[in-house]
C-alpha cells in the first residue's frame, strides 16, 4: 500500500474541527488507525458521520492540531491523497444513462488507468460483485442493491488505499447488504475501509467501531471490547407477559434498565449493584410469568445505550 512513511498510521487525527458558520459539525475528533481494517462509524443523525468521511476524503477545509490521512496533511494540498481514496457518497452519484461497463470505464479514465489495467480490474470486480451478467444494462435500471455494488466497484477500481463509504447499505434489502459486506471484508486485504452504518448487526461485524455523538468521538475500539467494557451484567427472561414481568422486575433494587420484546425481557444490572449471577437468576425465576432466565453476553444495543448514557468509555 503506497503512502508516505511506512511507519505512520493510516489515519491520525487530533482535535479535528469543522465549522459551518457558527455550528460545529466536528468538535474535536481524535482518531488513530494504524492497520487495514473494517472501521464502522456509528452515531445518530447529525453526529458528524458524513462530515468525518468527507473530511477524510480531503473534500473539506478543516482545522486541527494534526490531520494526516495516508501520510498526507488534510490542511494542505490534498490532490495526491484523492488519487488514493475511493469514496462512495450517501446519494448514489453514478450516471444512470450509462451502462454498468461504461460507468466503470468512465471511472477508469478519470483515474487515468491504462486500458489493460482497466479491462482486467473491471472483469475482476464485475465478477466479485455478481454484476457481470448486467454489464450492458443502464445503471439507472439496476435495483438499489446492485446500484450500490456498482458504486463500490467503481470506488475500488483504482485500487485505493482508503475506501470511504457513507451509509452504503441504507434501505437495501438484507441479502444485498450481506453481499456488500463481503465486498468490504475482501477489500480489507489491501485497503483501510471506513464505513458508516445505522445497522446494529453491521456495527457488530466491524473490526473497529468509532462512535460519534455531537461531533466528538465517544469510543474507538473493537465491538467486543465495547461490549465487555460495559459495567453491566445482561440477563434475558423468557416470558409472554412482558408487561407484568417488567413491572415486577422494577421492584428488584439492583435492576438497571429493562428492554422488553414480544417474547422476552432483557434486564441490565449494573455490576456494582449486582448480588451475583446466581442470586439474580434465582430472583428472575421467581418473577411471575417467567418461564426461564439466563445470563447473556452484552449485545450491541446495550453497548451503544450504555455509551450514550456515559458508561464504558
Amino acid at each position, binding site marked *: 500500500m503506497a503512502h508516505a512513511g511506512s511507519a505512520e498510521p493510516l489515519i491520525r487525527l487530533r482535535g479535528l474541527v469543522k465549522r459551518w458558520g457558527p455550528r460545529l459539525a466536528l468538535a474535536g475528533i481524535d482518531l488513530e488507525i494504524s492497520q487495514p481494517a473494517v472501521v464502522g462509524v456509528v452515531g445518530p443523525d447529525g453526529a458528524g458521520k458524513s462530515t468525518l468521511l468527507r473530511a477524510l476524503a480531503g473534500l473539506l477545509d478543516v482545522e486541527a492540531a494534526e490531520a494526516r490521512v495516508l501520510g498526507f496533511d488534510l490542511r494542505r494540498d490534498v490532490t495526491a491523497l484523492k488519487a488514493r481514496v475511493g469514496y462512495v457518497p450517501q446519494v448514489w452519484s453514478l450516471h444512470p444513462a450509462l451502462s454498468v461497463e461504461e460507468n466503470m470505464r468512465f471511472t477508469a479514465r478519470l483515474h487515468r488507468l491504462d486500458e489493460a489495467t482497466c479491462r482486467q480490474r473491471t472483469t475482476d470486480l464485475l465478477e466479485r460483485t455478481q454484476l457481470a451478467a448486467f454489464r450492458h444494462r443502464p445503471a439507472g435500471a439496476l435495483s*438499489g442493491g446492485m446500484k450500490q455494488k456498482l458504486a463500490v466497484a467503481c470506488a475500488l477500481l483504482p485500487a485505493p488505499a482508503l475506501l470511504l463509504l457513507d451509509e452504503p447499505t441504507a434501505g437495501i*434489502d*438484507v*441479502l444485498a447488504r450481506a453481499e456488500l459486506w463481503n465486498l468490504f471484508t475482501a477489500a480489507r486485504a489491501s485497503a483501510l475501509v471506513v464505513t458508516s452504518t445505522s445497522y446494529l448487526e453491521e456495527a457488530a461485524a466491524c473490526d473497529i467501531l468509532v462512535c460519534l455523538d455531537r461531533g466528538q468521538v465517544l469510543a474507538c475500539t473493537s465491538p467486543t471490547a465495547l461490549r465487555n467494557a460495559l459495567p453491566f451484567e445482561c440477563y434475558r427472561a423468557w416470558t409472554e407477559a412482558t408487561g407484568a414481568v417488567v413491572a415486577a422486575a422494577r421492584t428488584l433494587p439492583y435492576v438497571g434498565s429493562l*428492554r422488553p420484546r414480544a417474547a422476552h425481557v432483557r434486564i441490565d444490572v449494573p455490576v456494582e449493584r449486582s448480588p451475583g449471577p446466581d442470586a439474580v437468576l434465582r430472583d428472575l425465576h421467581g418473577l411471575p410469568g417467567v418461564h426461564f432466565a439466563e445470563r447473556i453476553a452484552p449485545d450491541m444495543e446495550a453497548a451503544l445505550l450504555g455509551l450514550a448514557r456515559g458508561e464504558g468509555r
Partner: protein
Amino acid sequence: MSAPIIRTRGLTKRFGTFLAVDAVDLAVPPRTIFAFLGGNGSGKSTTIRMLIGILAPTAGEIEVDGIDVVRRPRQVRDHIGYMGQRVSLYQGLTLRENVEFYAGLFGLQGRRLEQRWGELRERFALEQAEGERPENLPAGIRQRAGLALGMLHHPRVLFLDEPTAGVDVRSRHLFWHVIREEAAGGTTVFVTTHFLEEVEHCDRVACIEGGKLIAEGAPDELRARFTPGYRITVRGAPPAVVAGELVSAGCTITQASDPVCATIPSLRPATLAVLARLREVFAQAEITVEQPEMAEVFRRMLAAAREAS
C-alpha cells in the same frame, strides 16, 4: 383470532406497465404490532399509501377499521394516524404551533387539546422542545414529535413508515417503549422498518419483495420455518440426563457429550420449563439459549424466495 382491523384482498397497483404491488392479501389482528418489511423498490411504500387512502389501487379491496378505503378514502382519516418517512413538521412554526395546526384539522381545540397534548408531551418528553422550531431539534426529538402528532386524535390504527430511520439508539429504545404502551392500550400499530432486530418487538411480520408477499406470520413461526431454530447449550451437568430431558421437551440433540447442544424450532413454555427445572436440579450448570437473529431469518427467506422465482 378476532376480526382483522386491517384487511386487504388481491391488492394490486400498476403504474403503466410496471406492476408495483401484485395481489397482496393482508390480515392484521387488532391491538397488535405488525411489522411490514421490504427493501426499497419492493412495493412497500406503495402498499402503505394505498392502505391510508392517498393512492387509489388498480384492483383489490382494502378495509381498515371496518371502512372500505377504496370507496371512501376520506372516511378513514379520523380512524388512523400516520407518520411518514419525511418530516411532517412545518419549518416556520414551533412545535406547539404545529400541534395546534394538526389538532385544529381534527377539530381538537381548547381544553380538550390542552389535556391531550399535555398527556402526550409528558409521555414523549417533549416539554423542552415545545417552543422550538423543528429545524433546531435533533432527529430523535423530531421523530417523537412526529409520532405524537399522529396520535393526537386517538386513532385506532397507527401507520408508521420507517419511524426509526436516522435516529440514535436511545431514541429508538424510547420510541419502541411508547409503541408497546400504545399497543397494550388497544391501538393497532402497523410499522415498517429496515432494522430487523426491531421485528422482535412485533407480534406479526409480513415481508414484501418484488410486489409480492413472500412471508407472513409471527416472528417465531418464521424462525421455525427458515432456520434450524433455537440452539440450547448445557454445560456442566450430566450429559445423559440433560439429553434425555431435552429430547422429552422436543429438542433435537446435535451434540450428546458435554457441553450438550440441541436445537428446537420454537421455544414453547414447556421447553423453557424443562430448562428451568434443569437449572434447579443442577445449580452449577451453565444453560444458554441462542436465538436465531432476524437478519439471518430474512436472509434465508429472501434467498428462498429468489430461488423460487
